[in-house]
């Protein structure tokens, strides 16, 4: 399984996202490294189709289809929890669903 966490260090949420991702992977018995990819320029964001930080792709697929369609940008990405609240990281449930 290929797990990539793309991040921009202008947004402080990626360590929290990584921690949650590690928890979810451990809980599901997934023994895979998380590939950390820093995106540091607008050109790189464009080239990688990076809609904001953090972006998590499992086997190349974004864990949040809706947010994945946003224009590439060096920005903090907005996720929405199941109750509609905005969040700077995906929910545990979203990550679990992406692993299935």
């Amino acid at each position, binding site marked *: 399984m290929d797990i990539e966490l793309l991040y921009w260090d*202008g947004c*402080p949420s990626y360590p929290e996202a990584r921690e949650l991702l590690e928890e979810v992977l451990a809980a599901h018995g997934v023994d895979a490294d998380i590939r950390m990819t820093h995106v540091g320029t607008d050109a790189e964001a464009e080239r990688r189709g990076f809609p904001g930080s953090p972006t998590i792709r499992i086997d190349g697929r974004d864990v949040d289809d809706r947010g994945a369609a946003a224009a590439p940008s060096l*920005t*903090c990405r*907005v*996720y929405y929890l199941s109750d509609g*609240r*905005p969040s*700077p990281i995906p929910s545990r449930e979203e990550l679990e669903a992406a692993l299935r």
Partner: protein
Amino acid sequence: MTLALATDAPPFDLPGVDGANHSLEDYADAPVLAIVWSCNHCPYVLAWEGRMSAIQRGYGDRGFRLVAISSNDADRYPTDSFEAMKHHASEQDFPFDYLYDADQSVARAYGPERTPEVFLFDSERRLVYHGAIDDSRDEGAVSEHYLREAIEAALEGREPPTRETPPVGCTVKYRE
């Protein structure tokens, strides 16, 4: 450089989403004034702005005023444009003024690094608290209500129990 504690509030005169200009002097009657750097696009702001509204509504009858300012570079972040600010404020029914610092001169005078980031001034307009609204973006997990406690203290003429905390949020998008 970020404004130091006990420093006087730098003046400003900025357009608001209500169509009027608002200056520091316009809030002279407020015994306590919070200036919060904000924006539209940041998930941390989105997580906290409901609490900003609740704080304004909760302390408004005691004369407290909260003013939000966005200084983000709207050329690079179009969702932070003045038009988008008007739309967002209307959609969220903000009970506070939301001002646009297009040339970033006010941000450069106050020196915020993050959104949201609070500068709280007493009746003499000296900075008495600077930093985060509280200690968690998740409202259900908050245990330290920094801004509320600082407002209470300032309204009673006391020094806030906590005077400075690290703001947590997106970076202010300064032009390079």
